């Protein structure tokens, strides 16, 4: 069974054949996280990810990106099986729980870095692939900074005081590039909301597509 068939089944909340979803798989969606085949399939069955025929799939031996209609799945692969999974841009948190917020400074410097993406962290990525991914990440940063992915209609176009991208995964396959990033956003204004989400960017030749989680709409709680 191919990785594409595995992901298409998982996107509908169905168990793929051939142990295609590992029992210890970890699944992140909309700020929540669960582990295990049963929990993952249940979450996706309740809110399936529509996948159009001919949907974009970018993959290599370790990683696959599948574009849905408005969202995307990203999978870490082990011998073609899914060992970690992200749904970006759609669905609902599979575990809506309280959390301890962490006050932090992403830059620790007066010269900020918008995109955290260093060659040392991607030892298998060829220089030309790294350059293509860096260009795509810069475009994703610009797209995010324009206010896409706000918490609601009122804030969707609100000015963001700070956006930082942490590129977590990259695939370069022929002319196609796909990347997954953790996104940290801090809203502008006197009282600000902040939080992490995920974003996916696809590029094929000159065509780019971005998928972005909304900014979490919740109170800041740096305490138990």
């Amino acid at each position, binding site marked *: 069974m191919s990785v594409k068939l595995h992901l298409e089944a998982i996107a509908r909340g169905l168990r793929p054949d051939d142990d295609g979803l*590992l029992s210890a798989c970890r699944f992140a969606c909309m700020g929540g996280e669960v*582990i295990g085949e049963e929990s993952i399939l249940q979450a996706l069955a309740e809110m399936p990810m529509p996948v159009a025929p001919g949907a974009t799939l970018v993959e290599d031996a370790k990683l696959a990106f599948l574009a849905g209609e408005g969202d995307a799945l990203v999978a870490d692969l082990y011998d073609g099986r899914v060992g970690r999974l992200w749904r970006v841009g759609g669905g609902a948190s599979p575990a809506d729980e309280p959390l301890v917020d962490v006050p932090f400074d992403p830059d620790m410097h007066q010269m900020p870095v918008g995109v955290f993406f260093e060659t040392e962290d991607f030892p298998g990525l060829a220089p030309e692939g790294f350059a293509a991914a860096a260009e795509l990440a810069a475009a994703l940063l610009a797209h995010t900074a324009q206010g896409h992915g706000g918490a609601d209609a009122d804030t969707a176009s609100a000015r963001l005081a700070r956006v930082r991208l*942490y590129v977590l995964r990259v695939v370069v396959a022929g002319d196609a590039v796909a990347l997954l990033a953790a996104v940290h956003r801090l809203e502008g204004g006197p009282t600000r909301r902040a939080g992490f989400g995920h974003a996916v960017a696809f590029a094929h030749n000159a065509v780019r597509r971005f998928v972005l989680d909304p900014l979490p709409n919740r109170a800041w709680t740096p305490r138990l």
Partner: protein
Amino acid sequence: MRWDQDPAVLSPVGRPISELLREGPARQQLEGFEPVYRDIVDYIIRCTHRIWEEKNVGLCRTHYGADCTMHLLSGPAIGAELVTQNTIGSLLGYPDRRVIGEDVIWSEDEPGTFYSSHRITSRSTHMGDEAGVAPATMRSAGVTTIADCKVVANRIVEEWLVRDNVRALWQVGADPHAVAAAAAASDLEGDQARHGWRTDWIARTRSSEDVAMEEGHPAAAPAAMLRRAFADDLYRDAAGLLSANVDLRWPSNRRGAGRGYWVGCAMQLAAMLHDRAFRLEHVAARPLPHGDVAVALRWSLAGFHRGIGPWGPPSGREVLLLAVSHYRLRAGRIAEDLTMFDEVAVLRQIAGGLGA
């Protein structure tokens, strides 16, 4: 023994459960173990499955030493009989518990003495009442636990257990502060000498040296990172050992990315704990798929709760923290950090429990 000995003994990472539980010939010499166990990873994964999922809880009597000590930050549990009874009690609360083994990072510290750091995330339904926590809620639950076990001849002779207990309470609608305060009130009754284990542990943290490790051990860099942060307060220098995109999960749903976020997590602890002492208690490492390396560090932190932070107003009490960190190293840098400690037991100390 070298950290990467016995290359045929694979990490469970990336392997389906059907393969992990398949019986077959031995892949490692295991003196005194049941023949069903193929290697130390299989021993940990399979006996956990047999005890918790198959409900053959009595196997605790042949898999734990009669006088074994299970070290928890809420106090030690001693003996195989207590482990057996506690397991039955836990299963009453969460009978459909799946104990999903994410990794087993192990070492053979001397011939025949194994040490495993087993990261488990459970999935279950809260079907039974729990004393001191909550009546059955039928809510879905699941938290991460790291169990560090010293294993000799089929028996766990000592164990250190850390669990994300605040998250566990949140999931069943319980208030961690209220649960910790009730436990602390109970701790104040009776003979206070029973809390001497905590005083002894704090003394070890303050006066003992870090555990030694072989030259070139992959744990050296993460260990140096923790010491640089918690002992030297040089946070940016410490974080330089992390990947720029490091993926972080700490207790109570702290999840983020990047060096700055790690510094934020470390400073949350450091800001609250004054006159701090850090000690590295154990290290292990094993190869992972795709050329990565898994590292397990068990560490303790002692300090006086004199600063504001997630644990509330300063109590002035001396607090002990026991933590286990699992790292994924890629090309020598820390790409993932999963650090676990029990913050309910910390709140219990702050409320005056456990002899604090």
